[in-house]
Each structure stands twice: as C-alpha cells, then as structure tokens.
C-alpha cells in the first residue's frame, strides 16, 4: 500500500468515527456503509467526491489539529492516481504526467493536420477566399467519417478504461447494471452533489456558493448541445446555427469562469498535479467555445475558414486527448455514482 493510500485510510477512519459531514455529498453516506476501508473503497470515494470542500471547512480536525485532515486534497491525489492506473493503452499514461506538453502537441498536430487535410481536399483557395462555405473546405462525407471515427475511438477507449476502473473498485454490495448506470448518469447530469446538501459548494472561497454548479452545468450543457447539433451538419439552417452558437457560448462562459476561479481557490485543498491537468483541459474547452462563437460571426469574411478549421481541430484534439486527460473524469464519476446508487439501494442502516 502506498503512503498516500495509508494516509487516506487513516483520515477516513477518523471521518467514519465522526460522520458530521453526512449529507454534504455521496461520499459521506457511502462511508457509513463500511466499518473499515480497503484501497478499492478509497478509489471509489475519490471519484465520488465532487470537490465541494464543505468537508474541509466544517472539520474541526484540519491542518491546525494534530489529525491534519484534508479530505479534498487526499481525494484529489487519489483521483489522479485512478486516472493514471486505468489509462489504456498503458504508454498513454505519459500524457497525464505531462499534461501541458501533451495538450500543446496534440492540439498543434491536430491544427496542422486539419489545415493539411483541407488543402488536400479543396486546395489552397480557402486560405485567401472570403466566401467559402464550411463544406466546401472539408466536404461532408470526410467530415462525417472522421467524426464517427473519433467518436468510436473515444467510446471504445473510455469503455475499456471505465471497465478497468470499475474492476478496481468492485466489491460485494457494489454492482453496476444498466439501471444503476442510467441512475448514475442522471445524478451526474442533474449535478445532484454540486449543492453541498443545501449548503452550497465552498468554491472558490470558503463560503458556500452555487458558482461551480452554474458554470459546470453551462460547460456540460453547452458541450452536449453542440454534440447534438453537429449531427445535423452540414445543414446550416438558422436554428442549427443558433443552437450551435448558444452551446459554444455556454461552453465558453462555463469554462472561462471555471478557469478564472481556479487560481483564486484554496490551493491547499488540491493536488498540484491534478491542477496541472485541469488547466489545459479547461483551456481547450474554453478555446473551442470561443472559436465556436466566432466562426459563424465572421461568416463571409476571410477569417471564417481559419476559425472554422481551428474550431474543428480543437474539437478533434479534445477527443484525441479524452481518454488520457482530465476528460476521464466523467467516466469514473458516472461509474462511481452508479456504484453508489446500487450500494445505497441494498444497504439499510442499523441505527443505535
């Protein structure tokens, strides 16, 4: 057992003897179902934690006490370890270790490739002509095939990684069926645990707010809206364009605010390596949102082709990086939420 894991279990033993945090998030109900903790439990809790930080600010045993509890930090450290352990194929773990370089490289290659592809398919005209349509730059069949390939790639690798993670947290009483999976998905989309049980999320400061709830929901909502809208491509009707732009705007605003809050949030409550993974991922989302808003606006000008291609390239980069970056978090989060649903259903509390 690693030192980190030992310390996490030490901290959680103290938590389980206290249980004052019951009700803040799923973690605190989940620990009450165990008399003691295994590494599988800790991995599960690390991805069940939504980092609302309530449990730090209301704890009488934090840094100024000899117990030195810092649950948000130890869970963020473990969470990153679960990403690292379950990345498949294994060599891709390097992306997580060097997030800024990886994102930079992949995004650059993606942009070069996209422009190269455009030149290959449609010649260099789009570089100088202001009146191109997007499907004249990358013809529809190519766009569709490449998109589907990327979707398939992400879904396959995410599934492998999700299964690997699931096997690392599995134990009697914790199971995933289609029903629990859908319930977990529902909890994730509804942002069920972003409210701190009514007290808000202590982020970025030490007071309860709805900041993260609002901006995370915007980012997720915008991303889903754009994914759905892009299925209609190359239909560029008014409704399609508007809803795509709205999705991009939501992504841009959500990720911009999440990015802006991070530096001013309490740095003592998160793993440095996790933070280094958060920044490039959220930045990629933010730039995708920004170019998504801009390219319809500059339609009819020379800039249109550039923004469109950069936008498409960024999306491709996000998909390429999805299995090896912070973007793993929805997968492990949903698996944990599903497991939590199954546990909660089979468990009855024996009160004293």
């Amino acid at each position, binding site marked *: 057992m690693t030192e980190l894991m030992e310390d996490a279990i030490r901290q959680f*033993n*103290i938590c*389980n*003897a*206290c*249980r*004052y*945090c*019951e*009700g*803040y998030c799923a973690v605190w*109900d989940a620990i*009450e179902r165990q*008399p*003691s903790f295994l590494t599988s439990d800790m991995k599960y809790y690390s991805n069940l934690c939504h980092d609302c930080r*309530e449990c730090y*600010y*209301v*704890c*009488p*045993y*934090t*840094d*100024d*006490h*000899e*117990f030195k509890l810092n649950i948000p930090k130890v869970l963020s450290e473990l969470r990153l370890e679960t990403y690292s352990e379950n990345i498949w194929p294994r060599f891709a773990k390097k992306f997580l270790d060097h997030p800024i370089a990886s994102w930079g490289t992949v995004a650059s290659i993606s942009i070069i490739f996209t422009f190269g592809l455009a030149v290959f398919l449609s010649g260099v005209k789009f570089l100088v002509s202001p009146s191109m349509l997007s499907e004249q730059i990358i013809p529809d069949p190519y766009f569709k095939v490449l998109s589907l390939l990327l979707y398939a790639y992400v879904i396959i690798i995410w599934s492998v990684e999700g299964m690997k993670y699931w096997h690392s947290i599995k134990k009697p009483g914790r199971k995933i069926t289609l029903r629990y999976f859908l319930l977990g998905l529902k909890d994730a989309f509804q942002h069920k645990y972003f409210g701190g*049980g*009514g*007290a808000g999320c202590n982020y970025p400061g*030490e*007071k309860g707010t709805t900041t993260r709830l609002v901006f995370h929901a915007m980012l997720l909502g915008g991303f889903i809206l754009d994914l759905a809208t892009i299925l209609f491509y190359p239909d560029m009707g008014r409704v399609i364009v508007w809803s795509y732009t709205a999705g991009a705007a939501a992504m841009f605003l959500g990720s911009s605010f999440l990015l802006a809050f991070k530096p001013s949030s309490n740095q003592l409550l998160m793993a440095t390596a996790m933070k280094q993974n958060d920044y490039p991922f959220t930045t990629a989302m933010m730039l995708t949102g920004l170019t998504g808003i801009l390219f319809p606006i500059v339609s009819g000008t020379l800039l249109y082709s550039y923004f469109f291609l950069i936008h498409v390239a960024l999306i491709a980069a996000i998909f390429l990086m999805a299995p090896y970056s912070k973007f793993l978090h929805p997968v492990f989060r949903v698996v944990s939420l599903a497991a939590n649903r199954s546990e909660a259903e089979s468990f009855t*509390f024996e*009160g*004293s």
Partner: protein
Amino acid sequence: MRLPAISDLKMLDISNSDQVIVIGGGNAALCAAMTAAESGSEVLMVESAPKPLRGGNTKYTRDIRYMHDEDVFTGGSYQFQEFFDDLLKVSGEVTDLQMAEFTIRNSTDIPQWMSDHGIIFKKEIQGTLSLKRTNVFFMGGGKALINSYYDRAEKLGIRTLYETTATKVLVSDGVFEGVILKTQKGEMKVRGKSIVVASGGFEANAEWLSTIWGEKTDGFQVRGSRFNTGLPLKSLINAGAQTAGDPRGGHMVAVDARGPKFDGGIVTRIDAIPWGIVVNIDGMRFYDEGEDLWPKRYAIWGKLIAEQKDQKAFAIVDSTMRRKYMPTAFEPIVSDTLEGLAAKAGFNAENFIRTIKQYNESAMDLVKAGIQPGSFEASANNIVPKKSHFYSPVQKPPFFLYPLRPGLTFTYMGVKVDRDAAVISQRGKMRNVFAAGEIMSGNILRSGYLAGFGLTIGTVFGRIAGKEASSI
C-alpha cells in the same frame, strides 16, 4: 473580520464605553453577541483561539435539544415533562430545578431562531436514531454552525479579536469596569458598558484540574477545546462571583489512549465497551461493562478509568463483536492470541488470561438457559464484577484491543447566575456582568449529560445575556 494586532486595538476605539464585550467564541458567545448587536449595541467579541480553531467546544456538537410540539425540524413532539424527566434521569441530580425548568421552557423557539441566523438543518439522519425526535441536527456539525454564526456576526458589524484572552475581568462594587485582554504582543485594558462571559469551562487547565483530581490529571485527555483554560472564570470568581456546581462535575468518557491530549472531540470515544470486557493494567476487570443503557453508560466510564492505576484500561472484543459498535478513529490493536494482545498493549498477561478464562466459563450457563450470547438478556452473574447485559465469551480470534483513557469533555463548575444571566456575587447581583454557556451550566447540571443540552443552555442563556447586556 481580519485579526487585528494589538497595535490595531487603538483603531478599534477601545475606549468605547458604550460597547458590549463578549468573552468567548463558541455558541453561547455568538448567541450573546448577535442578540446584543441586533438590540442595537456595538459588540466586541474576544476569542482566545486563532480563527481556524475558533468555536470552543461547539465544534464538537451536532445537534440541539429543545422542547417542541410536532414540527418540521424533528420526528415528533417532545414536551416539557418528558424533557425534564430525561434530564433528571441522566444527571441524577439537577442543581436547581427551577433553572432547569426555565431553560427547557425557553428552548421552544431555538430551531427557528437558528434557522433565521443561517443554520441549515438536516432533513434525514442515518445514525443516532434515538435522538431523531428530541433533537434537531444541523448540517456539518458544530463547526458549520460556528462558521454560519461568525458570518452573521460579521454582517451585524460585530468585531472579533482572535488569539486574544481575557485574563482579568475588573469588577468593583458589583459593577463591571473593564477587562484586561492579552495577546502575544501584550496586554491592554478595554472598557465597555457591560460584559458577557461565555468562555467555557476549565477542562484544558491541567493546573486547575490537579487541585481537584490530584495526580490523576496527568492521565486525562481533554476532548474539549485546548483553549478552555477557564481564566475568565477564575477571574470572575476572584472578583467575588459565587460558584455553582461541583468542582468534580464534568463529562468524562472512555476515549482511545492514542488520541490527542486536547481537542479529541467526538472521534476518540470508544463505545465497544458493553460488548466485550474491560481490564486494567493488572489484567483485571473492575466494573460491569454491560451495566447500564445508553446514554448513561457512555458517561460513567471516564470516571471509572480515572480511578484505575495510571488512569489506563483496555477494552477487548473478539471477532464476533467487531461490527457491533461505531467505527473507531484508530485501528484496534490486533492479535490472534490473548497473550499477544497483552504483550502488545503492555499489561499483566497472566492475570488477563485468568480473567478471560473465568469470564468465558460463564458461557455454559447461557447455553443451559437457552439465551443467545451477546443479546441484551445475556448476563453472567457468577463472576465479579458481574456482566449484566450483552455477555458473550471472548474466544474467537483475532482479538481486538483499544487502549483507554479518561476523556474530559467539559467541566460543570462555573459562576452562579440568575434568570437574566446576571452573575451573582456574595453581595448580590452584579449590575452589568453576565455569563452564558458552559461557564454557568453548573447552575443546571451537576453530573451526567443529556445529548444536545449543552447547546440548549448556551443558546437560551446566550440570547438572554446578549439582550440584558445590551439594555444596560
């Protein structure tokens, strides 16, 4: 509010003789400060802890008891007589029946008032079902409550000095004249129109405790705040305040000996005792582990262990009992043999083996009588001391051990007050000196403890003290 250095104290207009000074930083102090501020007074609060450790023993609470009809906060009604009877049952003896009744009757509006001051209550409670009807639970426990109250206090314009201790309350002819505040940088006299002392008991003052408990004090752990040194209490007594409550009165439970010397709070308690056996350092049992029912049994073991050699004892269970009690903050000491357990924990193995052998032999009687070992009815009466409930032989390895110490939560002896929370001196009521919370809980309780009642006393008398102090 930011912690001002002592040099900043001048900026705080400390000569302001119109202000109410509140000594302490827990629930009672905050209730007093907020009420005084809402009544229109300027308030200066003085907390001896640094900001991250503020809040005294309130940090270690999670629920409050109050008298009520059926309501939205709890699982049913809890009327005066039942409340009063519960109080008598656990404390054995109430110091002042009228004060107890007064406290209970003034508790009815507590949850509404708390809610109005930013407290969020829990909708569902998984554990502690026995308190669901009588007590209301707040989200996040005591520190969440403290944080909400400090936020409110700040909004009300209350100034708080952290890391500042009131070392001397100056009273002349029953009239408050000023208070000496001490920080790391020095001392300073501060005036006000009145003072509310809500600084808790003296459980963290080893010197004071040793005048009562002698050498035993060395073996105590303090579950309560390390800042509860009782200096303001001592100062009030020196200024002529009458005392209330037994100096030995307090709440002392069995805690894990591996816990911290101070601020163990809720997590170091060991409630495995009724299921297994408890021996002292000589390897001998010394009290009926299954004697009483919760919640009283919880509170007797601290004093029992305090009477043992070196103030040490050891709770032992076997693998059949492991899941019957609350999880513990520290993992138990484990061994497959009883000898191994005694060696690891460092007590008399020879006697211990004999004790266990004798204890386990009683199991034959249960089998004959057809009683399920470990059940409430399972008793062993042919051993000394007997085990009156939950008897079950300790025989299935691995064995688990928890080293025990007496853990002092709080002390009861404080200053005598009247219904206006005014401190009573030998010569009568002090004009503008008030007390609330643990420092005056000895007016109501002598020993024992009723879950969630400390906050009741603090909230009832804190609000009264704040109002009275403001009206001077």
